[in-house]
């Protein structure tokens, strides 16, 4: 009993530093942002206005478009990316594979690239007379060039392609690290029992990697709900507001337009609420013990 108690105290010591830092540098500003969300005004002249910012939010067509767009990205992009990342990590975990280091590095590198270079290159590749269109035209996949940056539908596709390109290798790293903790003997046993690679994947790899799948699922969801870099730098939210995200709208309200930090804070808490909902769903699906 005593030992248990002392262990519990040691446990608190382990988490102490981390908790202090997060409280100071995240929760303290977060509480201030929350208070701010009940105020309104330009720049430094703020008045308390109660719930008006939140009411305004539900009548703001641009905010609603941004929320819609963000959901579209979330629904399509997160599953595609996570499956791809898992797929590559399993391929790369094959002990007999040659040039492993090269393939691993190549697939990871997109997440290292500077945002400036990445956005310029994507805009260039996907311009109307760009290489991607030329390639598709030559292969007769399409009969006329796709207006990637000007068409509401294709602009969203472009954003999804861009995020997937950039972040698949990043998520792959977590799986690769996780796969090292899976005992190879399990696979050997499965092979003897006649399980094919697909069965091995679904009956061994996926269950073993569950904690990591949950981790990448939640962090990618958070990343997508806060998506900013790609629409800001590749499409500028356009055409019109068709690729605008919630985070980008927050940025516009704070820095692009006459600053209204109170309203921007209110929009931010929409992201918090949405993220909490999705995280709870994923923890439930992930079968976390109570």
């Amino acid at each position, binding site marked *: 009993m005593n030992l248990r108690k002392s262990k519990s105290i040691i446990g608190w010591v382990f988490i102490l530093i981390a908790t202090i830092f997060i409280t100071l540098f995240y929760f303290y500003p977060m509480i201030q942002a929350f208070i701010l969300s009940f105020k309104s005004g330009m720049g430094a002249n703020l008045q308390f206005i109660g719930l008006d910012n939140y009411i305004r939010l539900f009548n703001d067509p641009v905010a609603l478009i941004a929320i819609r767009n963000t959901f579209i990205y979330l629904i399509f992009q997160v599953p595609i990316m996570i499956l791809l990342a898992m797929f590559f990590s399993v391929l790369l975990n094959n002990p007999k594979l040659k040039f492993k280091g090269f393939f691993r590095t190549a697939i990871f590198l997109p997440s290292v690239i500077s945002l400036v270079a990445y956005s310029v290159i994507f805009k260039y590749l996907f311009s109307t007379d760009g290489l991607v269109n030329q390639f598709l035209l030559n292969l007769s996949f399409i009969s006329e060039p796709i207006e990637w940056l000007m068409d509401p539908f294709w602009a969203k596709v472009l954003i999804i392609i861009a995020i997937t390109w950039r972040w698949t290798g990043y998520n792959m790293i977590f799986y690769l690290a996780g796969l090292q903790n899976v005992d190879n003997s399990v696979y050997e046993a499965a092979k003897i029992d006649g399980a094919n690679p697909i069965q091995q994947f679904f009956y061994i790899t996926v269950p073993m990697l569950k904690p990591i799948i949950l981790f990448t699922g939640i962090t990618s969801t958070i990343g997508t709900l806060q998506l900013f870099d790609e629409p800001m730098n590749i499409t500028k939210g356009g055409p019109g507001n068709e690729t605008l995200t919630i985070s980008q709208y927050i940025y516009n309200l704070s820095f692009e337009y*006459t600053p209204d930090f109170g309203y921007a804070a209110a929009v931010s808490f929409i992201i918090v609420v949405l993220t909490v909902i999705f995280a709870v769903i994923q923890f439930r699906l992930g079968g976390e013990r109570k």
Partner: protein
Amino acid sequence: MKKWKILFAAVLLTMVLSACSGGSADGASDDGGDPDAITAWAWDPLFNIAALELAEEQYVQEAGDFQLDIIDNAQKDIVQKLNTGLSSGTMNGMPNIVLIEDYRAQSFLQAYPDAFYDMSEHVNIDDFAEYKKAPTSFDGKQYGIPFDTGVTGLYLRTDYLEEAGYTPEDLTNITWDEYIEIGKDITEKTGKKMISLNPNDPDHLRHMIQTAGTWFTDEDGETVNMAGNEAVGEALRVFKTMLDEDIAHTNSDWSSRIAAFNSGDIVSVATGNWMTPSVKAEESQSGNWTVVPIPRLSVDGAVNASNVGGSSFYVLNIPGKEQAAEFLASTFGSDTALYQDLVTEIGAIGTYLPALEGEAFNQEDEFFAGQNINADFVKWMMEIPNVNYGMHTYASTDILIGELQNYRSGKALEEVLEDAQKQAEAQLN
């Protein structure tokens, strides 16, 4: 695991050591203790930063002991740093002098009225071009010292015009509708597009609308004026027509916009005079360019002169403000010789009226086939209609760009403007 501990200890040690040694140096610059070191934020090393350096050089000759630390930041970065710093209430780390684009000036001045230093006693705004007054002053006080003009021109490829049987005179003092008609003909005859447009970039809408002397908001700078605003409607129509009639090449960002004319793919560029260095960057096209007045909207009272961009200097209300104000007043506020050097050495045209003649404005430019472009720009600058850009230029143009998308997919213009008006009123309170 030993290695980890050693590494960790080493990192901690470096932190503590450099924190101690760095402390004194940082402390001094933080509270602005050194009265002679004035800091300034600006964004283009070849343009406004070079201008500040030139001004510093001249000022030191007169006033002696003076030091200006100029810090290069991208324009959008300055906006963000300034907003974060000023709204947090800590003036810590803020510069003494900052360059702000005229479109954004009112939103800074009104959002942070105490943060800026009143320059009324240091500068006489009537010495500057009329249209610079509204953006740089607020509540009867003069805050900004104008730096450059954003006077627009229509840059033309004379060789392509000739090929299609036109002369620059045919495109001088015309309306945008005439421009489109001529453009269709030229595009057909030469196979070159007439203009390069970015449907997400509001620059063209802004300078078109200013030719008619109106803006997205009324003269008070706040009342939204889009529904039934003839100039705004006309600008949208012209913009859409250029895209629909296939005379426009489309670009998606700054570099592809520049590439469009550097590569020789387009016939004309309608923009501010600050584009001149980028046009001249492609030396092989020397002698094939000329500049004529910007086309006007087909609206009563519209003129063939407009403005896009342009910026002014502001002094922040922190220690060192007197020196900073004094420096700006004796240089950009009154030094006619400086303005000559700005033109000859940097290619920057100011708006300080007493300095708009002289040698610098009498030089023929080989690149523009001997045209004296500076004198021409000054001439057009005098005709720029006076407009109050107000508080919401960026928010308004974003709304319009959004509505332009609907307009292009078939929504009626009247409805487009009304919806834009509604959206703006909801968003801008």
